């Protein structure tokens, strides 16, 4: 007897929404087992990573702060993945966006004015879009696989940032630490909840996610993205340009990642340093999938992954669980999600029920 997959006539809506929940639950179960096996208190680890952050109200602000970049980047990646265009270099676009905005910040460090912050945010958008535009250009002009080029550019971005914060942009008053000067009050995102880091950027993120949801579900732009991803030849038949879609997707996801980067500089970080990259660009890939490539789903998924960021820190101090553990949980989540995807399109049946007589016949014939 073995499991047999049977194609459903239409994809299951129920499974579409049920499987992400299932993936998270399975991750907690299997995660507990794995960590028990390698010598930790597995149940406690899962509790610290997934549950504890929710029970501690003073951590909620942290969750929101960490969810914001994940959602903003995740929304952009969700659009790309819908079009089967693989931008895995969001981390680099995030860094370059932050660098571009920081550049404006350094130029305007002795000025005041309401325009400075918007100028930095725009520079962040532009920086991310330009960095995202390179893989698009390389793919459209030279047929270069965008997965590889966008990732290579992340390494380039990291080295570029290292150079800037250790060299030209190093804070002269920073005791030669590799970091830029702190942003000035005119360069800082307003804090919405006093006593936390909850900043205006989080609200902007949510607004963008909702706008993207509308565009994806109701506009021709969203239609174009979905057709290109689902059936490229049909897209061409309908008069949608493949190359145009590559441009749109990369500029958009790059810009959103860049915005996320400059939000971090003008918000929680207040500066750039060697420790600035937080892997948000990679984790957002998981966020996009867990959110079912739907911008509203991405909001929820961003919160879930943000919990693991906060929980990872808690587990580190409570159980001495290395910070890398959260990466294992995150990867498990993506594995289970991808594995359970099959349930959307297929029904699982026991093949033995149908062909048991045949199996017997085959055995008797073989004898």
């Amino acid at each position: 007897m073995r499991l047999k997959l049977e194609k459903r006539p239409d994809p299951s809506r129920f499974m579409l929404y049920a499987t992400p929940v299932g993936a998270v639950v399975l991750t907690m179960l299997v995660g507990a087992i794995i960590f028990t096996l390698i010598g930790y208190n597995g149940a406690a680890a899962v509790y610290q990573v997934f549950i504890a952050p929710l029970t501690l109200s003073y951590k909620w602000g942290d969750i929101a702060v960490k969810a914001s970049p994940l959602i903003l980047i995740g929304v952009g990646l969700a659009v790309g993945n819908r079009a089967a265009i693989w931008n895995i270099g969001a981390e680099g676009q995030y860094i370059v966006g932050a660098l571009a905005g920081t550049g404006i910040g350094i130029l305007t460090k002795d000025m005041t004015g309401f325009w400075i912050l918007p100028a930095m945010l725009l520079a962040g958008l532009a920086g991310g879009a330009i960095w995202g535009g390179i893989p698009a250009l390389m793919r459209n002009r030279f047929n270069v696989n965008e997965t590889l080029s966008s990732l290579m550019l992340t390494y380039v971005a990291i080295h570029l940032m290292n150079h800037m914060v250790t060299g030209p942009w190093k804070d002269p008053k920073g005791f030669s630490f590799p970091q830029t000067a702190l942003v000035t009050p005119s360069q800082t995102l307003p804090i919405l909840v006093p006593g936390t880091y909850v900043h205006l950027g989080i609200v902007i993120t949510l607004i963008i996610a909702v706008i993207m949801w509308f565009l994806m579900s109701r506009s021709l732009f969203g239609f174009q993205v979905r057709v290109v991803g689902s059936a490229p030849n049909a897209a061409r038949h309908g008069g949608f340009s493949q190359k145009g879609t590559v441009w749109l997707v990369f500029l958009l996801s790059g810009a959103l990642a860049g915005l996320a980067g400059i939000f971090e500089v003008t918000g929680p970080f207040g500066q750039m340093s060697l420790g600035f990259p937080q892997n948000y660009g990679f984790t957002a890939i998981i966020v996009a999938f867990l959110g079912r490539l739907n911008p509203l789903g991405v909001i929820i998924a961003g919160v879930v992954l943000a919990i693991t960021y906060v929980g990872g820190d808690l587990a580190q101090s409570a159980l001495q669980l290395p910070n890398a553990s959260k990466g294992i949980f995150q990867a498990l989540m993506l594995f289970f999600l991808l594995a359970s995807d099959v349930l959307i399109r297929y029904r699982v049946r026991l093949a033995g029920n149908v062909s048991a007589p045949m199996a017997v016949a085959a055995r008797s014939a073989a004898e």
Partner: protein
Amino acid sequence: MSIDYIIAVFITVVGAATPILFAGLGELVTEKSGMLNLGVEGMMLVGAVAAFATVDLTGSPWLAVVVAAAAAAAVSMTFAVLTLSLSANQVATGLALTIFGTGLSTLVGKSFTGHGIKPFTTLFPDWLANDRFGKAFFSFSPLVYFSFIMVALVWWFLNRTRGGLILRAVGENDLSAHSIGYSVIGVRYAAVAFGGAMAGIGGAAFPLVLTPLWAEGLTGGRGWIAIALVVFSGWKPGRLLAGAYFFGLLGTLELYAKASGSIFTAMLPSEGWAALPYIATIVVLAIISSSKAGGGNAPACLGKPFIPST
């Protein structure tokens, strides 16, 4: 530039090329079967940490190679099960494998931070290995010679054996191979496992050939360069060998820039030299992919799910 300097550079390049040569060879075979596994970086990291742990515990670098291959092949099976048995998207699953491998190696490697290991001793007697010219041939780790053997073996397998023909057929037209009666899924499982094992050995080369110290994320994107290398090679083992040495050379430029000081760093800051391999990869990919010969050589079924009508 003295001959000694050139030999010294050559030896460094060989070291830097070996990991990506192994990983690239494995990925080449995997891709020839029609599977695109983007988890090479993750599998290399798993191989690296498995090798390090084995030497740390047993002191045997030979055993370490075997364990690294087995460990990476084992994690590559998650990719195979998801994409082949559950028809999950190959790109997404490969990414998941890289994220998983990165996390796992960091977690396991945590306890080795600061440990040093004893790598391979050279195969040849000292008078050969330490000779001024002899060291350009005889001073290498056994893994280096093994990598050459593997290039020849992979070439022979793909072009001269029936198994290689079947593997190429499966990557070229899975439905036809299925209708003739070959097990597409079986062939691809094997190809993914081989790719995993080779990536594992490539990862093992970091502690065993390059630096005998554990560092988090020590592969630094070499897994991705290995994937680019396969595109560069046009899916041909011989060209892959040449490409690995070219990328190896680029990868060592940073070291020489730092060591030689002002001349190099005046041209480009050291971060620029460090970024150079990645930029060069993109440029090389652009040249290869836009030329007619490059794009057309890819196996026709590369990255596509196999959906038989039965």
